[in-house]
């Protein structure tokens, strides 16, 4: 009999394995989603977008050029970078001074130097940001969804206690706040998939805890009261009315979320001090810490931003050099730590981290060399004051991005910009459609995913024509 029991056991495990394999390659949701070819493999489950809102100058960060130190009387046109460059862990690849930590982890990811932003005739940050995040240029005839909402819609949350789309670090009370709201939306996909906003990561826990001042037991009692009152009232009359059902369901979800142990992921105070301190360079750094914690518990799409505020942060209309030194300090250590921590916990391979900005900056060119747009910054030809020393104009023709994890090639440089002004993309230019589709490709979302809105199929990228850049993947 022994050989049969062996066989039986083998059979059992084989069939179980087979069924498990069946399940793994073809989730049931695939049948229901609009487009999902059988067996499409994904290389990422989670996306972390590190959003450098305001226009991060590439020659001052990940694509340094010839350095010109400040001294009175230097010509604006001669200045390409206001920082010297420092080596990274990759041979022959340099970053701008101040990004040493990130430079040290470039063996885990790719630096893209040839992102080309759209040309929309006039530089308005929020318009370019809208375009970056939705892949559509405003105005649109329907409300276009944020990429986070697309992902939330197509894949849903990983951990049902962590909202599928979380946005950390952006307040709407800033200037251009209304324009920002215009793309922080799930649009026609429905409010279900909108962003869960956490403007301040240090207060993030409050968003997922019972109301401030309410103890756990009181929260429990309150919920119990709600349930009991519901049962005693005139409930039966409503039958299976969808209003009632959706209310019940969503209140239940909210309750579970607020009670779940996973909510502790939002509590930065639970992080060991040594680790906390590395991330604690400011709001952005702590946002990265929250992203790390959430990813390790199972988050789907997290956006962490240095926050866009007109003329603040990366949006340097003057004092570019001094501001950039500060900005780099804010981002260098946390980003490097984020990548390393996720690598250590084994999450990096299935987490795609992207650092991006809506366009770059230059001292002289506003817009593109061939398509200059209305100037918005006063930049004298001769620099006599520190406040003019920096990249203050908005440059759309060459921009840097970083990508880590989620199947991205390690230790790779993609694309190239010119070494002399204009420092535009000269090799392998990449546009936003391709960026989005590369993300979808990694996640296993079909490139022609679309929904019909007002009779029109609305695709993840315009007309469903976007193509992922396969060379980015290793």
């Amino acid at each position, binding site marked *: 009999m022994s050989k*049969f029991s062996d*066989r039986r056991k083998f*059979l059992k495990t084989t*069939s179980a394995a087979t069924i498990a*394999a069946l399940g793994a*390659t073809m989730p049931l949701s695939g*049948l229901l989603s609009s*487009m999902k*070819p*059988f*067996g*499409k*493999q994904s290389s990422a489950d989670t996306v972390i977008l590190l959003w450098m809102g305001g226009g991060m100058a590439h020659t001052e960060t990940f694509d340094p050029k010839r350095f010109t130190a400040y001294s009175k009387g230097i010509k604006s046109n001669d200045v390409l970078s206001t920082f010297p460059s420092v080596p990274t862990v990759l041979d022959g690849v340099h970053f701008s001074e101040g990004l040493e930590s990130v430079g040290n982890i470039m063996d885990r990811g790719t630096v893209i130097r040839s992102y080309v932003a759209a040309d*929309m*005739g*006039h530089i*308005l940050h929020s*318009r370019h940001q809208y375009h970056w995040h939705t892949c559509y*240029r*405003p*105005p649109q*005839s329907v*409300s276009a969804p944020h990429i986070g909402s697309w992902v939330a819609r197509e894949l849903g949350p990983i951990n049902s206690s962590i*909202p599928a789309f979380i946005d950390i670090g952006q307040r709407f009370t800033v200037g*251009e706040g*209304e324009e920002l709201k215009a793309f922080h939306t799930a649009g026609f996909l*429905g*409010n279900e998939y909108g962003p*869960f906003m956490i403007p301040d990561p240090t207060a993030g826990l*409050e968003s997922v*805890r019972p*109301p*401030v001042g309410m103890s756990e037991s*009181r929260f429990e*009692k*309150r*919920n119990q009261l*709600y349930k009991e*009152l*519901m049962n*005693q*009232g005139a*409930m039966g009359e409503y039958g299976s*009315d*969808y*209003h*009632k059902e*959706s209310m019940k*369901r*969503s*209140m239940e979800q*909210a309750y579970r*979320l*607020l009670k779940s142990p996973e909510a502790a992921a939002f509590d930065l105070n639970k992080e060991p001090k040594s680790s906390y301190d590395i991330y604690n360079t400011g709001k952005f750094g702590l946002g990265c810490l929250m992203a790390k914690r959430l990813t390790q518990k199972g988050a789907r799409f997290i956006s962490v931003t240095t926050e866009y505020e007109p003329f603040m942060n990366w949006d340097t209309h003057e004092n570019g050099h001094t501001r950039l030194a500060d900005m780099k300090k804010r981002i260098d250590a946390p980003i490097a730590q984020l990548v390393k921590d996720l690598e250590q916990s084994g999450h990096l391979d299935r987490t795609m981290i992207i650092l991006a900005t809506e366009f770059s900056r230059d001292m002289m060119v506003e817009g593109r060399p061939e398509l200059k747009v209305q100037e918005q910054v006063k930049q004298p030809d001769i620099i006599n004051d520190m406040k003019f020393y920096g990249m203050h104009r908005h440059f759309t023709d060459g921009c840097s991005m970083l990508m880590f994890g989620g199947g991205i090639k390690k230790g790779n440089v993609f694309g190239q910009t010119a070494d002399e002004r204009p420092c535009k993309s000269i090799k392998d230019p990449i546009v936003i459609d391709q960026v989005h589709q590369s993300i979808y490709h990694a996640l296993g979302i079909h490139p*022609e995913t*679309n929904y019909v809105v*007002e*009779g*029109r199929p609305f695709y993840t990228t315009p007309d469903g024509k976007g193509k992922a850049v*396969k060379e980015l993947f290793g």
Partner: protein
Amino acid sequence: MYNKRLFWVGMSLSCICIFAVFNTIQIAGSGLDLTGSLAWRLLGRLHPIAVHLPIGVILFAAFLEILIIFKKHAAYRQAIQLSLLIGLVAGVFSAISGLMLSAEGDHASLLLLRHQWVAMGVLCLSGLAWFKHAELLENPTKRSLAGFRILLFANVLLLLLATYFGASLTHGTNYWSSEVSKKTTKTLLTKKTTSLAQEREPGLEPDPVFVLENEQLFTNIETPSMEDQADLQLQVRTILAHNCYDCHGPKKVKGDLRLDHIDLIMKGGESGPVVVPGNANASEMYKRISLPEGHEDIMPSKGKKLTEQEIRVIALWINTGAAWPDSQQVKKAFRNAALAPRNPVLPLDAAAYGNPIDKWTNSYLKAKKLSWPSQTDDRTFIRRVYLDLIGLLPTPKELENFLSDKKADKREQLVRQLLDREDDYAAHWLSFWNDALRNDYTGTGYITGGRFNITNWLYAAIKTNKPFPQFVKELVNPEKESKGFIEGIKWRGEINASQRTEMQAAQNVAQVFLGLNLKCASCHNSFISDWKLTDAYGFANIFADSSLEINRCDKPTGKFTRPQMLWKDLGKIDSMESRKVKMAQLAEIMVKPENGRLYRTIVNRIWKQMLGRGLVEPADQMDNQPWSQDLLDWMAFDFQKKGGDIKSLIYSIATSKTYQTKSVGLKDPNDIVLQNYSFRGSLRKRITAEQFSDMVGAIIDPIFPDSIMKFKPKYSPSFVPPGGYFARAAFVANNSFLIALGRPNRENVTTGRESQANLLQALELTNGERFNAMLKRGATKWQSRYPDGDSMLSAFYSLSLGRKPNSKEKAVAMKILGNAPSPEDIQDFFWAALLLPEIQIID
């Protein structure tokens, strides 16, 4: 003869094969692009041949097993063992070749997915059956035998299913069944039209197809009439729509060829033109569809070959010049509602019903053999009508007075009173119009001076019940204070040609006031209606200083068109005149009685606001069929005749038995737009963000402080809100609380809100700061106002639901409201109670 070594070899081989198969899936999926190679394609194409082997062999094994059952001796065991082995190996090869073949196609259709899944199941079961049978041979027990037979016959069933799906893929789903009901060509085509039409385009009416008659006409007569030509063209469109659009349409453009519009048909594909007008034999389209079945190049390449008649229709069409209809003559594939107003004679058999609306509903119910839904009781009615008309709850006193009122016409009087509460009425309907006219206090465009607020004008217009024609005229031909709607939102920089403010104006006027979607036609001829690009530009030109260059898909064409109303017979626009004059001309045309569409559209919107579902759904597609054409037409005619008095319209609806029916709920929100809807009563609605905020403000504590009001209306001196003044949500800028509860951001026109609850909304209600702060404030107030929990409980139920709590509710609530409830206890009670469906839903 069974051999241990053979067994282990065989078993390992099977397992390897199964996992190799899955890895093959992964390779194919990751786009290593082996799939293009010749070897791949050749092996893939062996699949239809290869599958026959495992099918035959497994069925043979089953047949032998059946013989064993009947003959009761195991003569065929060894043969069965061999068959199962062959079946398994052949099955593995079939599966692999099948996967290779599927790589040839593009996206997995549902049918393909089903076939693959079931086939994998078959493969696994045949492997298991073979194992089981080997075990059985070694050690024949009754149990083993039973187990084996179960596996074998399950395998056979699944095999048949896989075969069915597979055959459906190659031959179409009704390959066999279509033979069953093949009477005449006419019937066949009609049947197909009906079923497919319902699958693809709800609302597409089946059209009878008279193929043979046409052919005779065309071959016998020199110049076929326009009517006949239109008939033929419609048939061609129908054939193309049902057989070709899947691969040659807006979603998929195989061979760079689209067949969903005449321009695109004529343009051809990557190998050139497919239609040579006058010469079907030289036309690629005709050549491909008339290839023999199974031919490599046949079209359609997926699904059934066209029937003889269909091929002849295409040939006829090409040979007679491949003409396409002029817009006047065309027999439209899309339903177009009548434009002219219509005044149907009131039914004579409805004397029992005073309100004409009810006469029509009565006719409708009679025709459908439905009985009148029962009427709602007074308490439900007063709550519903208060919320629908003024967005507030009745105070306990108002409720009490109404309930104890004995007058026969108390409901009519109540409605009259509510409509006379001008400020409350205006505050409520302001939100409806803000959504529709895309008007908000904050939003994109304001900082760049590209957007204009119209609240002052709008509020006054609603409050004074401005006649609807005047309302429309002042929006379409605005003065400064109402220009925001037409001016749209102007972004700095370059924008898509279809989103210029003139185009926005055209789209928004068409959507809001005429119930038609001009957005598609703003880039190209619409695929879902008969509107053309020139129609959209013609309309937009009315709002333009000078004629706009027509852009097709954002590319300039060098062409222009004159300004023109969408239905030019309604009236002319003078292209020589200034923008102001053109818009004035449009304003007059829009409100003409002849423009029945305008009046039907607004009547439908108001009806939808009150009854939860329009007579026509979606309300932005007024070409769809209303559930009662008579009712819609009569109401629109009456409304226009009375000068477009909105309040009068609301009064008629609110005092009708139709409105006062007991509410019904829907299981699925998508059911609202189903075209086979039948009226069973008012639909249950969810309170809006504003209604909830105002409810809370009146009962507990204002949720918005006066300081954040963006609009401060001047209330009439005689008016004092019974609940006291507080900032109504309609006057406050959008914020996270209102967004969570469904207020749209008014970037675009919104003619209906999402009413389903979702997680973000629930979170805002569960721990949102604003809501909680309000609960705290309210609790403190109530603690000082009421002596004990009991009185608090009664007060709350009275204020919010107009009734006393029942004993069970009381028992539950008193657990927390006890004797001397703390503010926290009161807060928690408020929270739980406010979120009850009975409060959240308008019954």
